[in-house]
């Protein structure tokens, strides 16, 4: 897929320097099926990027490639201009579908503390500095109220905040979040999105967040990477969320409708008979009758 960075006006002011993450022509085959095909995009510090695609579009696979948990059949991933090493402290990661047993003996602050040094041997020694750092991080994500509660007994939105603090405490330059809004109600989702946008701007961290629905992210998204059929289109939302770009990506005609500030991607009028057949493949789509 062609990269559209060069065409975007005003990107120079938005971006704070060199790309922290550069995905270059990544292709992945899983048991014979091509899950990703020549996916390329880049992210700069402080940018908020949405990775949008329906279930099965390859979002999690792409994350696993960036994290080094999945090898690519072609292409490469550069972190801060260098090939990725095995354990990379530059990346903070929040996984998909986080469900913890309510009886798990782990307070929110314990999980945040594991973010500092979970890869090390031995038992962590309590110290004033360690406690202060954890408190500071809990405050940064508005989680200080429930810092001493069991993680498994927190609500979905509260757990997301704790996981974000866990990922941030190691001071990464890139934060990856896999479908963090999937199990949240609208208000909790808006709060998490606002928090992430604030963190990206204040700490100059690049945030890459995957979602099957782009609308909750539209107000804060600097850039979008739209995945469909294993291919990606990237740029600003104005550049990517267009009928011609998405039609090319899907390989069939789609329309992009703007309804009361919400963007709907629907199968085009010419393909009305295929509407239901494509339903699952079109993120953000609602059936308009």
């Amino acid at each position, binding site marked *: 897929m062609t990269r559209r960075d060069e065409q975007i006006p005003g990107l120079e002011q938005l971006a704070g320097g060199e790309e922290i993450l550069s995905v270059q022509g990544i292709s992945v085959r899983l048991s014979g099926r091509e899950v990703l095909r020549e996916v390329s995009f880049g992210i700069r510090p402080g940018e908020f990027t949405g990775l949008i695609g329906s279930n099965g579009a390859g979002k999690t696979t792409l994350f696993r490639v960036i994290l080094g948990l999945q090898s690519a059949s072609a292409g490469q991933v550069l972190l801060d201009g260098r090939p990725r090493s095995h354990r990379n402290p530059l990346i903070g990661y929040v996984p998909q579908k986080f469900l913890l047993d309510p009886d798990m003996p782990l307070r929110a602050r314990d999980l945040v503390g*594991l973010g500092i040094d*979970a890869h090390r041997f*031995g038992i962590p020694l309590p110290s004033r500095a360690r406690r202060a750092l954890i408190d500071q991080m809990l405050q940064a994500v508005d989680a200080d109220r429930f810092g001493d509660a069991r993680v498994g007994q927190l609500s979905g939105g509260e757990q997301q905040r704790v996981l974000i603090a866990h990922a941030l405490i190691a001071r990464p330059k890139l934060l990856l979040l896999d479908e963090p809004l999937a199990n949240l109600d609208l208000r909790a989702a808006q709060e998490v999105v606002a928090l992430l946008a604030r963190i990206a701007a204040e700490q100059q961290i690049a945030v890459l967040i995957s979602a099957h629905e782009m609308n909750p992210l539209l107000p804060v998204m600097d850039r979008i990477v739209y995945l469909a059929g294993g291919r990606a289109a990237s740029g600003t939302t104005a550049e990517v969320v267009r009928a011609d770009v998405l039609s090319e990506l899907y390989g069939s005609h789609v329309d992009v409708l703007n309804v009361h500030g919400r963007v709907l991607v629907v199968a085009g009028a010419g393909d009305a008979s295929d509407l239901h057949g494509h339903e699952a493949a079109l993120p953000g789509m609602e059936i308009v009758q």
Partner: protein
Amino acid sequence: MSGAPLAALLAPVIEPGFFAGEDVRVAIVVGAVVAIVSGTVGVFTVIRGQSFAGEALGDLNTPGGSAAFLVGVAPLWGFVAVSVVAAAVMELIGIQRPRGRDLATGIVLGAGLGVAALLLYLDSTVHNTTGATFTILFGSVFTVGSATIPLVVLLGMAVLGIVAALYRPLLLSSVSAEMAAARGIHVRALGAAYLLALALAVALAAMTIGAILSTALLVGPAATALRLTRRPGRAIALAGLLGAAAMWLGILLAYDSFAWSSAGTGWPVSFFVVTLIFLAYLLSGLPGLLRRRSGGS
């Protein structure tokens, strides 16, 4: 307070001469070590959802113990050898994949118990005694012997060493294997090292309260501790303490039970230990139950 009135006060509970016998002293030391090791490993067994693997490894000690009896070496050697081999086989045929885990465990368990049936049969025919079967299945902490203490302590320290070294990665991978892998932790190697610690802990428990009952000491105190504290370090300490308390009280009651019947035969220690662990678990659920009642009304 002087010693004499205290002894008089405890006389009806602690039979005179309780601490005099060497078998009791050995049982107290071995029981404490084994309970602390089991409780520590047990907390991770419960939060990793591997109680079935623990149960299977425990049951699989049956062929190990019965083979050792047949050959004429201390049962602990049989327990340790079979436990470690069984853990390795489970690891190799896919205990790491959550879906394959129960299947792999079940298959190894079935095969192992089949061998146990043969070995226990041979034990009772060749040696012409049924005592072996009971000792292997339900333990006999009074027959351990002081010569075994160094080995028990050594194995116990090894297990505690593994858990202490891997504490943080184990905890994170118990929360989310994905998060651990993303941080560069070798989740597979970590799981294998944990399984080795589990196998050794279960072998020690099998020697004291029996192959079949070893899970009770592994999972019971840990599950109770998880209800009582929300901090991982405290849960481990509490599980060890609860296990040791149940073990000591069980040994005391078993010793006392010699005086209960006129026949002069005591009840098995394992019965008391397991019953005490079960009671503690039930009691630990009361606060939560009461809270829910009052919250609901």
